[in-house]
């Protein structure tokens, strides 16, 4: 096996690296059009769109980061990480677009929130003319992005905290800090958080990139005139005029530069902050609990709020999908109809396409990731990571330009295979990101032990390593599945419109405004990944040994 190691790793490297690099190169090549940049510069909207992008992207990232940090601190100190993480898979699996659609149904002037308060409290007989969705300030978009990214950050942090080596070290360091007189809270912020947050740099970058460049969510709940720059770029890319397309690609370039700039800025600020934070001033902080007493157990209010929000969104989608005539301010529809679900059933090939793509791309990405982590030298891995994360970091509007050019050259546009490869390219970095902490943190002594017992490498992998990593493997596959289900731009662009997934249907219908069918598809978009995560949880559940004598 050792003899094949490097050739295999090289093959894996070429298999993933070359197409990704080619895609990136083609995407960047689209930026070499001076006329397009000029046209962009002269466009009356792009500067305002860019400032909206910066505002919504940075505000949502900062909010998500702070709330996640606070939740983790409380979870770590109260030793209640388990309950904190329990609802996470459902939230994590919720596609961005579904959350946005559900939020619109809650917050709109004719939404559930105001229906519940009208007319007894508000006096409204008709929905008020309030801009509560697609608000010009991007507040709805910020709320939706924040609600969606907190679970992602919590979960990536959890993958670190679940590593045996780290967990034990951090627990003992935390305990040590307390013996030096630091309060549990302060000990977390001084000792654990600097180490944890440094490991969350790539996930954070993904959140920032997503916030700055999201299209589907912004189409549904973001500001409309002007929209964010990513939406503007997407609209230009869809124009019938080739010159306007080039302008869209240029806007994608601006987004890339924006992301680069903000990422560097963020990094710099973080470094500055850390340097300041390292200067310990000896203050221990008041002990939050009397000595010897257990810290309070329970979930923080912000976590309950988050769970409640997701529950309300799911309920809004479920009711919306069977609503017929439903005038304001009635809380419950006047008529109920299953028509939307009949329509979904009639076009079940859409669900089939979604499932097939998600299963296949998650499987491919998982197989590649396991092989890569198993075979590639660590130095290669470190070197390849930036390339692999390109699709996370490059704005999706620009990335699909590259993917589409590549698909055109390989004659894969409008083909299932092309769509599968595009999805796999999008899924791969997430799966790798999800899998590597547990996989790389696997205790090397198991291998030595297994070898010393005379077992070959395959026996070790099949009987010891992979079964022990079952949970991480299943969870990573579920992440890949969820990412694939949520893909909007690649499905639309590479699929040449021939393939519709529940996500493309939901977003297209959300623009059309028909509540019941939109809700049905958004609900499906919600349910499919949740099922995948439930399956992963079931597969990954630790073996239980029943006592022989009850």
């Amino acid at each position: 096996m050792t003899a094949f190691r490097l050739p295999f790793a090289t093959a894996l490297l070429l298999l993933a690296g070359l197409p990704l690099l080619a895609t990136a190169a083609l995407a960047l090549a689209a930026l070499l059009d001076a006329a397009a940049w000029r046209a962009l510069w002269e466009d009356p909207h792009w500067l305002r769109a860019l400032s909206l992008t910066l505002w919504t992207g940075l505000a949502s990232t900062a909010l998500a980061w702070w709330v996640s940090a606070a939740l983790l601190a409380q979870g770590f100190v109260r030793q209640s990480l388990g309950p904190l993480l329990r609802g996470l898979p459902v939230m994590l699996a919720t596609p961005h677009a579904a959350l946005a659609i559900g939020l619109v149904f809650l917050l709109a002037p004719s939404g559930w929130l105001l229906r519940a308060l009208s007319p007894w409290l508000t006096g409204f007989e008709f929905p008020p003319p309030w801009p509560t969705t697609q608000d010009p300030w991007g507040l709805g978009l910020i709320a939706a992005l924040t609600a969606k990214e907190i679970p992602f950050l919590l979960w990536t942090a959890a993958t670190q905290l679940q590593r045996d080596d780290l967990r034990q070290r951090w627990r003992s360091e935390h305990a040590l800090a307390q013996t030096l007189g630091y309060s549990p809270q302060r000990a977390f912020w001084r000792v654990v958080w600097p180490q944890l947050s440094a490991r969350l740099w790539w996930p954070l970058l993904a959140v920032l990139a997503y916030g700055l460049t999201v299209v589907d969510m912004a189409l549904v709940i973001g500001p409309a005139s002007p929209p964010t720059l990513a939406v503007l770029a997407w609209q230009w890319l869809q124009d019938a005029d080739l010159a306007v397309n080039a302008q869209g690609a240029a806007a994608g370039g601006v987004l890339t530069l924006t992301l680069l700039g903000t990422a560097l800025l963020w990094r710099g600020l973080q470094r500055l902050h850390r340097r300041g934070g390292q200067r310990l001033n000896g203050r221990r902080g008041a002990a939050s609990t009397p000595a010897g007493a257990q810290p309070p157990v329970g979930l923080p209010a912000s976590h309950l709020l988050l769970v409640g929000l997701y529950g309300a969104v799911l309920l809004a989608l479920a009711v919306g999908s069977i609503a017929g005539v439903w005038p304001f301010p009635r809380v419950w529809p006047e008529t109920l109809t299953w028509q939307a679900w009949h329509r979904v059933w009639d076009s079940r090939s859409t669900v089939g396409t979604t499932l097939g793509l998600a299963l296949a791309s998650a499987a491919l990405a998982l197989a590649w990731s396991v092989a890569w982590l198993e075979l590639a030298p660590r130095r290669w891995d470190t070197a390849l990571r930036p390339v692999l994360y390109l699709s996370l970091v490059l704005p999706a509007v620009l990335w699909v330009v590259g993917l589409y050019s590549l698909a055109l050259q390989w004659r894969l546009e409008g083909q299932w295979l092309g769509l599968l490869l595009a999805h796999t390219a999008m899924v791969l970095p997430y799966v790798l990101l999800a899998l590597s902490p547990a996989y790389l943190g696997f205790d090397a002594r198991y291998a030595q032990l297994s070898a010393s017992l005379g077992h070959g490498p395959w026996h070790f992998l099949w009987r010891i390593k992979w079964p022990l990593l079952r949970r991480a493997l299943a969870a990573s596959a579920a992440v890949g599945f969820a990412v694939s289900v949520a893909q909007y731009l690649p499905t639309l662009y590479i699929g040449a419109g021939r393939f519709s997934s529940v996500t493309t249907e939901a977003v297209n219908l959300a623009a059309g405004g028909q509540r019941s069918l939109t809700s049905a598809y958004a609900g499906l978009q919600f349910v499919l990944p949740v099922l995948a995560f439930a399956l992963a949880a079931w597969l990954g559940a630790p073996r239980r040994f029943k006592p022989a004598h009850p």
Partner: protein
Amino acid sequence: MTTFSLSRRELLLAAGTATSAAAVPSWAQPATPTWTGIEKAARGQTVYFNAWAGSETTNAYLQWVAAEVQAAYGIKLEHVKITDTADVVKRVRAEKTAGRQAGEGTVDLVWINGENFAAMKHDRLLLAPWAEALPNFQYVDTMGKPTTLNDFSVPTDGQESPWGMAQFTLFADSKRLPQPPQSMAELLALARRQPGRISYPRLPDFTGTTFVKQALLEHVADVSVLAKPPVTGDFAKVTAPLWQFLDALHPHLWRGGKQFPQSPAAIRQMMADGELLLALTFNPNEPANEIAAKRLPATVVSWQFAQGTIGNTHFVTIPYNAKAAAGAQVVANFLLSAKAQARKADIQHWGDPTVLDLAKLPAAERALFPSQPLPGQVAKPAPTLPEPHAAWVEPVEKEWTQRYL
């Protein structure tokens, strides 16, 4: 058992249509032998029909069409769901730029009209004339509905086949709006009385553009200039009254006219919720459809402005590089059949007015069409006003975008 015999009868009917189509008058004879050849070539082909898919009734109708052409002609019809036909134009153009030859394209049939057709025709992205040779074309009401031959003042020249009719129509709940406005001027007065309760879709949405064109039509000094492309330098002068009107209207619209809903369906949902007073559509039967589907209350009425509103025809066309050009023509012919047109006009299914002249049809086929108006249908149809020439659309949209977005 009942459904089986019904579908069998439908099949026989379809076969009957085919035979009667084969026995067409002498002037159509030369086309007949090639038509049999086309039907033969079409068998077994897969036709990718790129059609706007924002409405579930349309999608369901196309699923029915797919089942019918599969049974009758052995054609597999795939509905490629799109949100904007401009994407398809762009795709075909990209394919031409990439050097794709005839028979190498990804698009076989497109639901199209107006500027997209004008663009495809201008850029030579269309198959050579074929539509007027379709056996069922003889029943098209080319006299009574001249827009079946003139797509936004651009002659169709047999490069697209008429599919359905449309006319700008408004609808509202009569409980909330007992006296519907009968002109743009009355609409403005209503908006002043009830600010924030009226809107129209953001351009370049088709219905939004039509709203603006209707306003243009009602404010231009001489309507005849709109039948020709705008004369250079004249555009600002001709359209000045339009912008004056919109400037006056916008402050009283939903969200102060600073934001516009994305689509007429969004407006319809907002009207149903009570957020807006009235909704707009280009399909006169849409309100009746929605009432039948129990998504709108039965108190909703629809109307057209007393002096008339803009109307047009929508078509299907075939790109130059269609892989299944024969299959696409057979599908286009089926879409023109009395059976398909009657089902399309039936609000149970879609409710899109027919392009056919019912008087030309054999009595048995005429009987397929309903005769009584339904709740929500326009009680007093107003005259159909011709669309301005397609060349007006782009500058109007551009100017609108510049002024109001």
